[in-house]
């Protein structure tokens, strides 16, 4: 009796409790049980969507500032009829496409070098340079750009010593795009890297020993094989940009609003929850459609959530 360690007894007791609470005949439902917390958490989101759907069908009474009891589609009609919302939607979409292209162009060489470098030190340096801004939130980074690009900021001071400027850079569309590209770069690189790792390096050597130059090898061998990573990065960068709030509001300075800013303003400037909900739901539908089309055309890339088929 005394030989029996106390941790074993503890484990036995735990085991007995577990067997009592979750008897063997329930074991085939263990998978379901494990999913309950996650499904419940996401359920909050679904409840929110329904709440938003309900609100979007109610009109704002401009006298009492309360929402109507009966349902109508008037908020959606409003959205279609107001050209401002179309302008904002168009601006977000166009910016998202531009940012996606720029981020992939900049991110691919970075991911490639990070995976392929032979120097462990260099790999670590590239990883740390990537993670540091990734772990510093959007607001702080946007603030950093205000300091770099502002009227008395770093760039204008440097240009000033050359007798140039000052130039107005913040609160313009190009600075907004630049800030967004810098924000998206870590996402893109981290989604590209696994896809590049999966490419057999000997394929590149083979291509080059068969006489293809560096660019031809890149275009005909590396990029096609890196496709899952390119798809995943493109989808993520596009949707995150399309729906971004902080960069347009900090670096865009109110004249370069995206849809998310319009949603926020509908709720907190004009206090029209119905209109804001309708706009937010339109964004959900628009964004999901774009993602579905991209994934449908290009495949799920590295975004899947399924195991590798070793299910019990």
């Amino acid at each position: 009796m005394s030989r029996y360690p106390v941790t074993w007894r503890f484990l036995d007791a735990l085991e007995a409790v577990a067997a009592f609470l979750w008897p063997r005949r329930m074991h085939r439902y263990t998978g379901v049980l494990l999913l309950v917390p996650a499904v419940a958490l996401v359920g909050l989101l679904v409840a929110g969507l329904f709440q938003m759907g309900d609100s979007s069908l109610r009109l704002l009474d401009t006298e009492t500032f309360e929402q109507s009891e009966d349902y109508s589609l008037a908020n959606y009609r409003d959205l279609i009829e107001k050209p401002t919302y179309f302008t904002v939607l168009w601006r977000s979409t166009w910016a998202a496409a531009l940012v996606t292209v720029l981020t992939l162009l900049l991110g691919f060489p970075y991911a490639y070098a990070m995976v392929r470098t032979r120097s462990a030190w260099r790999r670590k340096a590239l990883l740390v340079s990537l993670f540091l801004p990734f772990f510093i939130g959007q607001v702080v980074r946007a603030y950093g750009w205000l300091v770099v690009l502002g009227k008395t900021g770093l760039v204008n001071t440097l240009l000033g010593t050359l007798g140039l400027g000052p130039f107005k850079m913040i609160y313009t569309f190009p600075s907004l795009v630049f800030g967004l590209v810098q924000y998206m770069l870590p996402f893109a690189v981290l989604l590209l890297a696994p896809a590049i790792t999966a490419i057999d390096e000997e394929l590149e050597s083979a291509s080059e020993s068969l006489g293809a130059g560096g660019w031809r090898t890149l275009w005909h061998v590396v990029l096609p094989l890196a496709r899952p990573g390119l798809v995943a990065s493109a989808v993520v960068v596009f949707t995150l940009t399309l729906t971004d709030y902080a960069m347009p509001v900090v670096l865009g300075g109110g004249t370069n609003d995206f849809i998310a800013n319009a949603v926020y303003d509908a709720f907190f400037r004009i206090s029209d929850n119905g209109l804001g909900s309708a706009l937010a739901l339109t964004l959900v539908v628009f964004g999901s459609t774009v993602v579905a089309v991209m994934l449908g055309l290009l495949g799920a890339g590295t975004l899947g959530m399924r195991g590798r088929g070793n299910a019990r």
Partner: protein
Amino acid sequence: MRLSPRAVFGAVIAFNLVALALPTLVILGASFTEGNMIVFPPEGFSLKWYDKVLGSEPLREAFLRSLWVSLICTAAGVPAGAFAALAMARFRLRFAGALQIYLLLPFTIPLIASGIGLMLFFGEIGILGDLWPVGIACAVINLPFMIWAVLASVNGLDPDLENAAANCGAPPLQTFLTVTLPAVMPGVITGGLLLFVLAFNEFLVSLLLTDANTVTLPVSIYNSIRSIITPDLAAVSVVYIAVAGVAIVLLDRLVGLEVFLRGK
């Protein structure tokens, strides 16, 4: 002359490194200035802005609130995400395809819509204005990161190891604690750190779910940006640089940053 990919890649990477590091370096530099304005090069060296920030009651409270939100997010998100990943990878589930789409919802629904929806729902059930729902909201929107991190580890574990443990007489709980859990630990740590840092940084959802009495640190920084940009804001932002630094060191020591390069 034709440029080789090597030369172009080198130039692009150099540009990236500057662009990635510049905001951080500038904030660090500006936080030590002696002057009352942010100018280049910074005037003199002093810790007065740190002194001012440390003495500020609202900032200290906002910092503690952010910390609390991150802890709640991690406490709720880590088990939920880890168990979900185990279930997705290890059990033959009905409706696995639909389930996958459902669990990806926090990722596919735009943050502004998730935030507004949660705001309306929390308002409806009367918990809007409390701090803990902000932590739960952060766990919801970042859940996919946790699931992905753990899935990567689960997929690296041979199910025969668990079968062997069971075969040797280990009851289910013991198998889980001594075989499964240690094997997925790298994923759990990675996901947990991500959840903590993302919640500490979360701006938009905080902005929607907090009021004047519950502002978190990112929201209070944002509110100050909109007025006048003084160096004290740089000193506050250094908190974020420090937290990011600690998180990276932890991630590298406990798991190794290289896990992010591993092919799927």
